[in-house]
């Protein structure tokens, strides 16, 4: 197997708050292979976005306390701020959740899409703008030549997200991090943007980290998925296997809480009981145990680590690691 493009190893990011230290990212490890799309799922506040920002070292006011982020073998956490700026936008590009606020309202769209190329390739205004216009066309913006002269408020939400994607691609980065790129968009536009991301992934071979809380998006986009809960990865594996046989009770509950068209009868939806834990004051042992239907005595005592469970998956759960299958109830 070739070396992964991006490797996150035991990353810890904390935020100091009045109530105490929040371990927003607590020992996260995963790798991203060239050309693949990796899904990162979990509910709000589980550390998905902070993980993404930590990779870019944009986690301020949070602090990366330990761990490594290896981009083609180079540890980003050790780079100087100056070197890191060269990575941002050139090697790793990022797309944010809300396309309505991610563009600077005072500049023309073409200028903004051209900015990364001007910063990183040192291109002059004209050349960068030309490539921006061509990129806007490639991401499906009609009449890119004239649209480049418009301001962000003249674009719809979906079009703005296309602009953000174009901006990310002008420097042909190795890695694209899409942080909930479709959450703020309505359903039909979501589908178009996901189509575009899939297309970009194929066309440019950009390895993509797709952060979402939408399991359907992951199922359609990603070969591999990691599931996060309370700052940790609780399950990782091929999407197909994870969805078919979840090996962590959290994944299991998540999958049961979404409606299915192919359900045999009218099953009631089953929400996950309880609320996500307070990150300042995590439950002892496994963070998920207070909400878990399968918990055993050990879960409240010891923190489980991510271990191989079954053929292809890894899970951080004492129950499934002991060989129990998650079923029923």
């Amino acid at each position, binding site marked *: 197997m070739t070396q992964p493009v991006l490797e996150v190893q035991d990353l810890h990011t904390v935020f100091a708050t009045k109530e105490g230290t929040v371990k927003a990212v607590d020992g996260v490890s995963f790798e991203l292979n060239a050309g693949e799309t990796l899904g990162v799922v979990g509910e709000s506040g589980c550390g998905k976005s902070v993980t993404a920002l930590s990779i870019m070292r944009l986690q301020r006011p949070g602090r990366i306390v330990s761990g490594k982020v290896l981009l083609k073998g180079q540890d980003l956490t050790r780079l100087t701020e100056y070197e890191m700026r060269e990575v941002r936008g050139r090697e790793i590009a990022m797309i944010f959740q809300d396309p309505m606020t*991610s563009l600077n309202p005072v500049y023309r769209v073409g200028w903004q899409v051209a900015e*990364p190329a001007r910063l990183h390739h040192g291109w002059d205004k004209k050349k960068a703008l030309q490539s921006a216009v*061509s990129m806007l066309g490639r991401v499906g913006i009609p009449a890119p030549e004239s649209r480049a002269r418009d301001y962000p408020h003249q674009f719809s939400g979906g*079009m703005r997200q296309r602009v953000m994607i174009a901006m990310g691609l002008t420097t042909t980065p190795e890695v694209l991090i899409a942080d909930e790129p479709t959450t703020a968009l309505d359903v039909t536009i979501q589908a178009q943007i996901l*189509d*575009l991301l899939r297309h970009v992934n194929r066309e440019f071979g950009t390895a993509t980290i797709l952060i979402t809380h939408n399991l359907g998006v992951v199922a359609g986009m990603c070969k591999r998925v990691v599931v996060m809960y309370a700052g940790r990865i609780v399950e990782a594996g091929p999407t197909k296997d994870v969805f078919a046989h979840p090996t962590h009770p959290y994944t299991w509950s998540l999958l049961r809480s979404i409606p299915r068209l192919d359900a045999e009868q009218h099953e009631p939806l089953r929400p996950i009981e309880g609320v996500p834990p307070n990150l300042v004051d995590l439950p002892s042992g496994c963070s998920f145990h207070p909400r878990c239907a399968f918990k055993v005595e050990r879960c409240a005592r010891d923190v489980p680590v991510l271990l191989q469970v079954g053929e292809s998956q890894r899970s951080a759960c004492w129950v499934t690691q002991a060989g129990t299958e998650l079923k029923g109830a």
Partner: protein
Amino acid sequence: MIGPSRVAELEMPGAGVETAAARPAQSYWNESWERLRDNRLGMAAGVLILVLALIAVLAPVFSAVLTHYEPQTINLDQTFVRPGASHLLGTDELGRDTLTRLIWGARVSLGVAFLTVAMSLSVGTTVGMVAGYYGGWIDDVLMRLVDTVLAIPAIFLFILMSILFRPNAVTLAAIVASVGWGSVARLVRGEVLSVKQRDFILATRSIGARDSRLMVRHLLPNVLPVLIVAASLGVGQIILVEAALDFLGLGIQPPTPSWGNMLTNAQSYFFHSGFLVAFPGITIFVTVLASNIFGNAVRDAFDPRLKSH
């Protein structure tokens, strides 16, 4: 990398949809400008300021064409001439033409006002942006400095400064600006704190922009509206401060004419030749009023929510 020739071959999914949704909307600047243009009183005030500024800049031309007098030429045969054909606004105790002196005085009053505003804005904006952007101890240090500056009793500082330096237009502006920048810094810092929370700042950092680029290219244009409002409201205030300093003899010294020091001379002849008090007084009053009306109009144009009805 991406040649235009390749573009044509590529079919992107979803291309061409959504055009209907991308309706043209007006930009913030256009809308503000239209609101300002619709405000007749505000526009009239703005035009008046512009005319006064033009008179100030072209003072030698105006006095030569309009009055044919020099501002400092003494003519003891022609003292206390009432307003009339030979001297449109009369002459003072030394026979100097009042209108000519008012025209030249505009140079001082408006010059000092604009210079002061420019100085307080540039210092205040820099300090406010740095404090707001970096936060932490830098913010603490800079804002305590601002607190200190704003706690200085300005009038005593002005008196002290004008004793130490004989003020000319530039030093006077510097003296007034030395306390004026504090409130600008506060204003800008507050605005930066709110703008920097917006996603596009993070997005711009994510493409690898330097702090300086973020501040100058991305934050500054977004705080510009508050700066413009502060500037247009500031001019009127500073004209008053400057006139007061001149009147007290702490500002521009005679014989250089300024609206303020013309009043100082005139007060001795208040009952004898009231017009000598009235003309500079009215000039100051009208100019400050116009500045305030224009400033308010600009503020209303940029932030319609503030408009009181």
